[in-house]
């Protein structure tokens, strides 16, 4: 095949440039060092590998290498029925699992032209926001621990537990709920759940206040994160950055508000937080505000929960009519979407998973040029990726 020849030529060209770089280094009598960060490294929480060429402590070039956890969900989904697929995609972003199911179910519902009854949609939205909190609280602790403060992460784990308990009380699963169904949700809310959840939200709000003081207000944290890893809005968009990462660059775009998916965000009173700076600090700040906003949203959702059925009329054995549909939601990590191609069968013909972290992390080679080694950690932590979301 001709393509192979071209590949080989390109590889050779690549090797040649590498060799030329090495010669250059010899001429000016410094020696670059290639540092292999990961796949087993505390800062990569997962198995991301970063190959960084360093000059002293300055990064000349850095390239993330992933695939250590590639599970091939797009291929596996092609032989599983629609309800079976949700089990798989729970494992994409494992910190906010329920949020993974929603866009897939929404895309399938689009194709089937069913709409979940209002109560189901409200429950979906509640759980969606709860998984956002469960996800982002961990980020709030994790970035602090990446910057060397060892205590906040324990607080994050402590308070995240309240949210996980609430998710578990409804779905039966702490990490992988597998709760969303085409046409509704699996179960109704248990008795007393609403009060418990409101109390948990109180705790999360306290947690947010605490972190605003403890982490955001800390001079060392600020000096480590302000002005580090600035993403200009246009560059960020062309790399496909989404979610809090792009909102921290001042782009006022949130799929919860601007998307056209059937969740009930338009009936809530809430605010999209943006920050003009685009640096690591801004990303942390935006996520912290979003967590607090999410608790208010959960409160509103619980107050306005309509009565009614939780499942629409759908056939027992789900065959999705032929067609193509793309649905995307604002997941904790950013835009997550599923492009489903159906041929009117029990299984999807093709599922393209658009996961947020994959695009978010693709900016790193651009962003890491010329930074210092400690800043690699800041930038990676603030971009916030989850390996399952990159590798799928």
């Amino acid at each position, binding site marked *: 095949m001709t*393509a192979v020849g071209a590949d080989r030529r*390109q590889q050779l060209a690549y090797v040649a440039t590498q060799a030329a770089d090495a010669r250059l280094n010899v001429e000016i009598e410094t020696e670059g060092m290639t540092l292999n960060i990961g796949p087993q490294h505390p800062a990569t929480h997962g198995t991301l590998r970063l190959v960084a060429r360093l000059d002293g402590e300055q990064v000349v070039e850095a390239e993330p290498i992933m695939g250590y956890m590639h599970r091939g969900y*797009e*291929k596996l989904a092609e*032989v599983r*029925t629609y309800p079976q697929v949700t089990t798989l995609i729970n494992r994409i972003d494992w910190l906010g699992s329920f949020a993974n199911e929603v866009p897939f179910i929404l895309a399938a519902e689009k194709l089937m032209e069913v709409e979940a009854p209002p109560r189901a949609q409200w429950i979906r939205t509640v759980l969606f926001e709860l998984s956002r909190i469960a996800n982002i609280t961990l980020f709030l602790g994790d970035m602090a621990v990446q910057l060397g403060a060892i205590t906040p992460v324990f607080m994050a784990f402590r308070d995240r537990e309240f949210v996980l308990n609430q998710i578990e009380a409804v779905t039966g699963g702490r990490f992988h709920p597998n709760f969303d169904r085409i046409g509704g949700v699996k179960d109704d809310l248990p008795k007393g759940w609403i009060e418990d959840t409101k109390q948990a939200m109180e705790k999360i709000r306290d947690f947010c206040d605490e972190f605003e003081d403890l982490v955001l207000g800390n001079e060392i944290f600020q000096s480590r994160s302000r002005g580090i890893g600035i993403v200009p809005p246009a560059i960020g*968009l062309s790399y496909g950055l989404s979610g809090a990462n792009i909102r921290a660059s001042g782009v006022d775009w949130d799929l919860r508000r601007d998307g056209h998916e059937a969740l009930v965000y338009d009936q809530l009173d809430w605010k999209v937080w943006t920050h003009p700076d685009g640096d690591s600090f801004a990303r942390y700040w935006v996520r912290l505000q979003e967590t607090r906003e999410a608790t208010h949203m959960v409160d509103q959702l619980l107050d306005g929960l309509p009565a009614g059925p939780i499942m629409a009329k759908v056939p027992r054995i789900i065959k999705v009519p032929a067609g*193509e549909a793309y649905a995307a939601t604002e997941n904790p990590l950013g835009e997550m979407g599923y492009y489903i191609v159906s041929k009117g069968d*029990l299984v999807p013909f093709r599922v393209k998973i658009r996961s947020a972290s994959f695009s978010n992390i693709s900016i790193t080679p651009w962003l890491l040029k010329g930074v210092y080694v400690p800043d690699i950690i800041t930038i990676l932590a603030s971009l916030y990726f989850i390996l399952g979301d990159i590798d799928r």
Partner: protein
Amino acid sequence: MTQLSSTEIENDVAEAGPQPDKRREAWAGQLAEALDDGFVAHHIIAGSDLWVRVTRDSWTDAAIAARDLLGCQFFDWLSAIDWLPSPYGRDMDAQEDNPQPKAADPMEQGHAGGQTRFQMVVRLYSIAEHLGITIKADLPNDDLRIDSLIQVYAGANWHEREAWEMFGIHFNSHPDLRHIYLPGEFEGNPLRKDFPLLARRVKPWPGIVDVELFPGEESS
């Protein structure tokens, strides 16, 4: 295009409902005008989505036009679809039950049509208008190459690498076409339909047949 404050922006989801048809029509019209012969077909689902199919040669032009004319600054994703009906069926049966590959069904392309087995798909999104567009392009069966979009959207880099390894599509002038997920010595293109899912070739999947009946329900 980018707004710095968040409070003053009107919540425009509610009024977006009835109009998007016109807006999407307008988009398709604009693209058709810009691409001329390169524009092959389009498909609109009212209030939901827009598909546009372009020729392979105007692939980059379509992306540029979408970015500059339609304001689709956000690069969502890029991938490909293999329209070949799977020769292995759904892999519900064990190999010993169903040793012969099935005769292929006729190929059937989706929205906005298509002629060939492989089709490129790219999704772009306009932050200002909150509209997305899916652009497709057919690839000739004997020459799986297409221009790279890196010059238009920097983020296309990794998506193209993924499409390259999963489908074996070559991207012209891509600087760094290497494996992204699979190990370097991996052979084959896993997301092609004729690439067998080996786990299923060995063992049947106990899926779908054992749907339990509800109490009092009779099987039909």
